[in-house]
Structures are given as C-alpha cells and as structure tokens.
C-alpha cells in the first residue's frame, strides 16, 4: 500500500513541478483545468496539566508525556478543478499529509473531494460524489481562509461527519441571496474511505441533509473574515438538519466523544448566523444532536469496540430512564481585519456537551487567533492559543490542556 502512495506522491509532485514552470490553468476552449494546492505546517506547544492521564502510560509515577509538543504537517494538498462545456464542473482534492494516517477512525482519510457538478438541469445543480456536506456554516468555511489552526470541538468532525459520498441538489433564489441544499449520503461520513468503509450497515439506510441560508443585502460567501472591509452591513442566517439511522455501526464512533458514528437513530438540527461590516465580523452557530442508540453490536466484528449506550433502557444514568440522550453546543466568534497591519485578529468561544444525561461534562474553550498576511491568504503566518475554561481535574472531560499552535500556510494557485 505504501508503495502505491509513494508512486502517487512522485507522480503528483512531478505534476506540480511541471505546473510550476508552465500552466496553472490549462484550457482547450471547452475544457478548463486548474491545478492548485496548499501546504501548512505548525509548531504545537501544549501546557500540560499535572494529572495522571498526562503522564507516560497514564502512570502517576512516570514523568509528564510531552508527546504533543512538536512540529506537525497539517496539509499537503493537491487540487484539480475543472469545467467541461457548460454543464459539468469537477473537483478532485487530496491531502498527502492525511494519507499517512492509517487509523480506522477515518476523520481525515486523505481524499477531500472527488465530485462533479451537473448544471444541465437548469432549475437546480446536482453535485455527485465524495464532497463536503452542506451542514453547518463553520464546517463550510475552508480552513485556509481562517486564522485558526483548529476548528471548534463542536464542528471539527467529532460530532458529525463533514464529508461523505452522495448526491446534493442545490438551487439559489433572489440573486443568490437564498441558497437551498438537499442531499442523500451514505451516512458513513469520512469513514467510508477508512479500512472499514465500503458496505452499508444492515439497515441499508442513508443520511439525509437539508440546509437553507438567507443573506442580505447581497449574496454572502462561506467566508468568516471581512478582508475587503465591506461598506454596508451584511448578514447571513442559515438553518440545517440531518438524520441517519444505523442498525449497528462497523466503525469506531469517534475519537473523543463517541458521537460521530452511532448505532441507532441520530438527528441533528443547527442554526448559524454571520455578520460583517468595515472589517468586523461575527459568527454564531448552534447544534443539537438527539441520539437514540440501538445497542446492537456488529456480530462480524470482535474488536471490543465501544458502543454508545449511555442513557438507554439497558443502561440508565442517574434517575433518567430514557432511551435517548442529547448532545450539542455553540460557537461564537468575533474578528477584525486590520488592513494596515494585514492582520486578522479573532476570538472564539465554543462549548460542547457530549451527553446531557451527565453533569459537569461540558467542554468549553476560549481561543485567540492572529494571522499576518504576507500575501493574502496565499501566504499567511497563523497563531492560535486555546484556553480551556473548565475544571482541569474533571475526569469526564477530554480536553483539559491549554495549547498554542504557530505556523504558516502557503497556497499555490
């Protein structure tokens, strides 16, 4: 497998080399192909809290395990985007940095986009293939247009998938001020491309997602920062929902919160709002999950995987006899782009309650970010500091340490 990746890498970087010396865009008049990509790398420093879980092998007699203090390659992306005639557009995007991740969690499988858009229907567009899901504004804003290194816990892909294979139908109204999305997907999310991906579970059901957003006084792109200092106040509000049922999941249910892939019924609703004016911008986002686990375990797997059963008929928590639980949280972000300094300054609050049947288990983080544009978003120095607003001795919490991440992104396009 590694040999294949190596050959793919060699071929791809040869292609980049050719592109760097010749064409970024190739056209024969009918077919236009653009080659682009991005690299980002950072240094991460974590301020470790002195708790047993932070010591080597979780052993209190061992010293603190500083394994997260390191450089990291976040992105090594290559993107091919094109258009064929009037009716077809396509996009293939891969991240070589994620190909090295062979875990079965599958949060970042390496393939980011592999889809095409058919515009021949006239009344609406159809996006077919592996694609970013039209759910949640924060998720829809590309990472490279942000001063942050890490998305909020709520929206980074731990509570719901951000990409999947399927079909999206989309249409806009009133000169793109209203956008409507509806789609059906596998429900496996990014894990479709993990080593356990492929077939559906015995329910054979799909995940359905719908989103509507409204902007005024003009269309509002999925960007969070007012780089152009718009001269009139602009806002956008969106609502979205998704539902999926899985009899049992063949996947690990997630990295930290066991919410991403659930054996059972999972319904999510969310709302978001964005505002910008004269360099200032504000975003608010809210999501709530309702999860009704089946507690069925895949009989073909003997991996001892965790199945979400907290708060069910067979495993009650406290005095709450219920067959479901809720999870969710909010993200609030305020930013300013200082044009003379070519700098974005941003502060963000986010929280996530992964299970409402437990008390004192809400994760809360205050993040500060600054980004200096050497050449717009194409070359940008970024720094993010995350401060945990929680009791660091609380064993129910996953994220207890503050950390700072500093690095640079470079987009070639």
């Amino acid at each position: 497998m590694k040999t294949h990746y190596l050959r793919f890498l060699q071929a791809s970087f040869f292609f980049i080399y050719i592109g760097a010396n010749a064409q970024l865009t190739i056209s024969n008049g009918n077919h236009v192909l653009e080659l682009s990509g991005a690299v980002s790398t950072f240094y991460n420093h974590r301020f470790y809290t002195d708790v047993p879980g932070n010591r080597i092998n979780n052993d209190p007699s061992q010293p603190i395990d500083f394994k997260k203090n390191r450089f990291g390659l976040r992105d090594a992306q290559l993107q091919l985007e094109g258009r064929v005639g009037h009716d077809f557009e396509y996009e293939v995007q891969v991240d070589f940095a994620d190909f090295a991740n062979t875990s079965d969690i599958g949060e970042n499988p390496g393939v980011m986009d592999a889809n095409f858009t058919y515009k021949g229907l006239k009344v609406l567009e159809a996006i077919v293939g592996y694609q970013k899901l039209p759910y949640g504004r924060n998720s829809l804003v590309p990472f490279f247009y942000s001063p942050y290194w890490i998305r909020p816990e709520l929206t980074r892909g731990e509570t719901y998938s951000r990409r999947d294979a399927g079909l999206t139908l989309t249409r806009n109204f009133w000169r793109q001020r209203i956008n409507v999305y509806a789609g059906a997907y596998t429900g496996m999310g990014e894990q479709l491309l993990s080593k356990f991906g492929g077939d559906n579970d015995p329910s054979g059901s799909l995940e359905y997602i719908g989103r509507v957003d409204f902007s005024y006084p003009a269309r509002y792109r999925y960007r969070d920062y007012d780089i152009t200092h718009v001269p009139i106040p602009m806002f956008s509000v969106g609502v979205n929902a998704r539902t999926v049922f899985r009899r049992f999941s063949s996947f690990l249910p997630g990295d930290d919160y066991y919410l991403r892939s659930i054996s059972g019924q999972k319904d999510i609703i969310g709302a978001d709002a964005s505002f910008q004016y004269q360099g200032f911008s504000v975003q608010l986002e809210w999501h709530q999950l309702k999860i009704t686990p089946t507690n069925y375990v895949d009989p073909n797997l003997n991996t001892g995987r965790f199945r979400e059963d907290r708060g069910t008929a067979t495993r009650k928590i406290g005095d709450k006899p219920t067959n479901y639980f809720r999870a969710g949280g909010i993200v609030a972000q305020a930013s300013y782009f200082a044009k003379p300094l070519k700098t974005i300054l941003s502060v963000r609050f986010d929280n996530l309650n992964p299970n409402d049947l437990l008390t004192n288990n809400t994760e809360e983080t205050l993040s500060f970010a600054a980004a200096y544009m050497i050449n717009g978003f194409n070359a940008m120095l970024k720094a993010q500091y995350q401060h945990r607003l929680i009791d660091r001795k609380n064993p129910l919490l996953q994220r207890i340490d503050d950390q700072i991440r500093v690095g640079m992104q470079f987009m070639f396009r």
Partner: protein
Amino acid sequence: MMRLLFLSIILPLIFSFQKPLKLQYKRSFRIDIPEPSDVCLNAKKDGYYVVSDNGFLFETDLDWKVIRKADYVGYDFEGVYADSKYVYVVEERSRRIVYFDITTLQLIKKVEIPYSGGRNKGFESLTWNKQKTCFVSITEKDPTTLFEFDESFRQIAQYDFNIASDISAAQFHEGKMYLLSDEDRSIFRLNAETYELEKTWKLNILNPEGLVFGPDGTLYVISDDLEKVYQFENTLP
C-alpha cells in the same frame, strides 16, 4: 520596550479606523442584469454594453434599460469593449475573446488569448488604449498583469502591476487609463503611455466590477453583488 510594542500594535489599529476620502455617488438604481461584471459605452455613444458573470451580453440604452441580449451564452464574461464593428467580450475562464456583430449581436468568432494563471484570476477587463493604439486587458490578481494586444489580439507587451489587491475593470477616457479595484474599492488613473499611477479615489460601493464614462463624461460604477449602477455627481476631478 512594552510601550513601544503597545504603540506599534495599537496605533496602526487606530489609523485603520480612520475613513479615507471617498468619491460620493449621486444616486444608485437597480438594473435588470444578473451579476453585471463590466460595461462599456457603444461607439455611437447612445447606449451601453453590459456583460454578466453568467456569460450573457446585454445592450442597454443610456437609461440602462435592456434593449437586446445576445443569443450566445458564454462561460464567464468579465470584460467588454465595443467599436463601430464588433463588441469584444473577455471570457475569463476559457481565456478567449468573443467577437459579436455590432448590429445583430450574433457571435462572429472566438480568439484564444492564452494565460496560465488561476482559473478565476484571468483577464478581468478590456479596453482600447487610443494613445498606444492597442487593446489593454488586465488579469485580476495573483499576479495583476497588464497585457497589450494588437487589433488581432496578438500580445505586444506586458507590465507587472502592484498598485492594487486586484483589478476588476479598465476604461480609456480622455487620454487617461482608469482602473477599478473591487477588493480595494478604488479607482486609479494612470498615464496611458507609461501606466504610471497618477491619482487614486476611494469608493463606498460593495463589489464594484465595472466603470464607464457616459457621453457627457459622467462616471458610472456597477456593483456585481447588488446588481446596481452608481452614478456620480461629476466626472472625476
């Protein structure tokens, strides 16, 4: 040391709040053209040609009412210029100049103008430089480059540009070259021979994508996102 650090961060922030001098518009009105991306005066000076991101070419009267629409639908029209024979339209993504007959608005031919930059960062403007008797087209950004073409759109020369974040339109008017920047919301006046910057005006318009001088020299700027025309009090001082 701390004070110096404080001043170096805070002072530019304070100055960034100060509003620069802006060109004030007299009135604005909507036009029935989706996503207008550039405009030019026709050769008879009795109407305008307006192109749209959606690949449409429209002809309007001097009151900006649509009179005609070309049958041909392109990909991504971003620049337009007309003489007494043709309407020339820049198709940004496919790197082509599309010729339309001035009387029928029928497609006549297409000419390739190769450019290897980003797909959506290609030629964004088109005008005729009377001083140098050549077409001028400027790429939008990354990089912003001014290209000169002869009458058959063979490239004559190119000039690197660093005066703006992007360029969205160009017009030749009374011996000067005027450029419009969407991201900087500015109009630049250049020497038409040397392309040296002579003067800059700030605009208070969202997403300005085209500018044109009317028959009496009145300046109009069109906003793509708002699909509006802004008429200014006087011609540029």
